[in-house]
């Protein structure tokens, strides 16, 4: 209940940011005003009264900052602002952006290509390929790899297969994979 309320309050002030900010400005301002009025009634000048309030009550600007940073949505807002700032910076220097994107692309591509060479056993443990689908609605699949049973087992939600051969296995699925038969 409390969590829901926290989320709701956060969303409200995030999407009504302008209203929330205005309220945040208005309330401490009113506080300052009321406190100053009190002092002016004791015969102090307006300026002197405002100064006195600030001195006694601490900075209201800091209070505003603390209040606006207290909710979880302020983290969201900061992230959003950072993201926009980042994009703006990238747009301002297209050459740098191009080099950065190319470097990343090259790096990812190189890793993609080299991975199976460096770690030949780390790739997908098996692949399933559809051979053909005849009129009797029997799907002929070729399963290959270092551990075909595992992959097929996962595909068939753990149904056991008979007649395993370690590297290559052909199975037929009746209908839409409701039952599996060795083919």
């Amino acid at each position, binding site marked *: *209940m*409390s969590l829901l*309320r*926290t989320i709701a*309050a956060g969303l409200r002030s995030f999407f009504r940011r302008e209203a929330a900010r205005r*309220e945040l400005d*208005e*309330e*401490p301002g*009113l*506080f*300052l*005003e*009321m*406190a100053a009025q*009190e002092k002016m009634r004791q015969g102090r000048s307006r300026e002197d009264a405002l100064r006195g309030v600030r001195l*006694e*009550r*601490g*900075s*209201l600007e*800091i*209070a*505003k900052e*603390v*209040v606006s940073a*207290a*909710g979880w949505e302020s983290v969201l807002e900061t992230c959003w602002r950072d993201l926009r700032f980042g994009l703006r910076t990238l747009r301002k220097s297209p050459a740098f952006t191009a080099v950065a994107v190319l470097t990343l692309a090259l790096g990812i591509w190189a890793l993609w290509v080299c991975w199976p060479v460096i770690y030949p056993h780390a790739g997908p443990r098996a692949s399933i390929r559809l051979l053909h689908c005849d009129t009797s609605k029997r799907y002929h699949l070729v399963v290959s790899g270092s551990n075909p049973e595992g992959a097929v087992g996962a595909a068939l939600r753990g149904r056991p297969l008979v007649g395993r051969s370690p590297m290559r296995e052909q199975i037929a699925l009746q209908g839409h994979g409701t039952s599996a038969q060795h083919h």
Partner: protein
Amino acid sequence: MTDRPGDLVQGTLDMLILKTLSLEPMHGYGVAVRIEQMSRGVFRVNAGSLFVAFQRLQRSGLIRSEWKASENNRRAKYYQLTEQGRNRLKTETREWGRQVAAIARILEA
């Protein structure tokens, strides 16, 4: 020890706000003044801490707020205790009594 108003005992602001609002709905400045009056000038409430506490209490559903016309016809945000806040005040008051008695026992030993 000076006679000038000082900060509140740490961790008591929420409880004091709840107590003040249990008397009647009030705006921020009203709460600050009321706490000072009731403490007979011993405590002074920092405006920053006050607004942070309001937000915290509101988010945990202990108080709610609405904008209304104040006594001198200006708009002000009035805070009001919720049922949950009333219950919290009761438990906090009881807990505080226990703690004060314990501290008194230690200091008098």
